[in-house]
């Protein structure tokens, strides 16, 4: 798993076009997942959240979890958007602090989309636990994007 290239945070259509071109050769399985994740983030961008140009992604089997580590700063608010291109799959993302305590202020999951939000109580390391709850596919591609505001 590694950060995926993307372009232009707040201009989502151009971002999708760039992302599609950039990801096509090697990462086609997360290409759509990333565009889904950016689409989910779009309304937040319109509300003034700064959506990062990078995305993180990979694939998981059903019931599998993966933790992505993040440096978050107290004083900012963060939103994380998780998506897959497998339309009948079900995913979720939750945020835990460095001691393993659930730290998010809000989260939801609906089918191929999931969301979590946090206003960190302390600056430091957090874990974004990504999970494929169910999926008809053996491996389910996923992508995670995030935004922040002060």
């Amino acid at each position, binding site marked *: 798993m590694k950060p995926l290239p993307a372009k232009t945070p707040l201009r989502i259509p151009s971002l999708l076009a760039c992302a599609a071109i950039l990801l096509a050769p090697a990462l086609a399985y997360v290409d759509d997942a990333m565009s889904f994740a950016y689409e989910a983030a779009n309304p937040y961008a319109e509300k003034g959240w700064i959506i990062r140009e990078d995305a*993180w992604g990979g694939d998981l089997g059903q019931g599998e979890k993966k933790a992505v580590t993040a440096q978050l700063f107290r004083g900012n608010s963060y939103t994380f958007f998780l998506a897959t291109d497998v339309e009948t799959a079900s995913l979720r993302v939750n945020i835990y602090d460095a001691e393993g305590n659930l730290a998010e202020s809000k989260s939801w999951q609906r089918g191929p989309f999931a969301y979590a939000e946090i206003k960190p109580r302390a600056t430091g390391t957090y874990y974004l636990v990504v999970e494929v709850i169910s999926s008809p596919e053996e491996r389910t591609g996923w992508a995670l994007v995030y935004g922040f505001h002060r």
Partner: protein
Amino acid sequence: MLYLSPSPSEICLTLRTTFRLLLIFGACAHGLFASEPPAKKIDLSQFPAQTVESVVVPVPSEVFAVLDQMGNPNWRAELGPKKSFGATTDRAQDALLLGTVIADGFIAVEAEDSERVKEIGRNVLTLAEAINVRKSVVARSNSIVEKADAREWDAVRREFDGALQDVNQAMAELNDDQLAQLVSLGGWLRGTEALTSIVEDKYTSERAELLHQPLLVDYFLKQLDVMSPRLRRNELVGKIRGSLGRIDPLVSKASGEDIKPAAVTEIHGITSAMVKLIRPTAD
């Protein structure tokens, strides 16, 4: 009258987009629900090591967004005298140098110094040329100049964030990922030098908490350790590796513990020395 009917692929695209939008709006409209509530606590050691392999490295704007809420530091003093940096004969040094100059851009934005921002935007272009990624940052550089003229500071910040990401991406495409890491590291070092100076100037435990970044220090150390033998043999890279190892224990406080003023001063001393090594012509 000519009538163009949509092709099957266009219909598919439309249906697919509609489906996506329905899912997104459905999720938003129906609000919060989950199949079962998430665990209140997890044992992070249960995650096999290979699952915790990716790190979300923050963009500089995330740190500066917090600093905005902490009074009005003397950013002009942090910016130092006017200076443009030319390319060297060492690509590793050029990559580190580029990172420090991008960090200078953020400091100039904080100081709201549009002339310096524009100079830095042009300097980014010169250094990007030295590591073969000029093309990827031309648009950013122009945009930085344009937005600095208009004094649109948030937009300038986003362009500097974008420049850093564009450089990283272009270098990855050139299979120069390791040099891209050096760009990020250079930016982090210069940013931390300025940040520690600001914290030292008016110490509060809240300001010092911004330095609690063990994940990033550990990440950079790991990146340096897996670099090619050629880069690891590079004298500058070797010195930075050694110094970064000294910062690691200083930023790794236990939960609830403050980073003390003495530690802030020490981190500042180490990062200043490293920045001087990267750009010895600065003085």
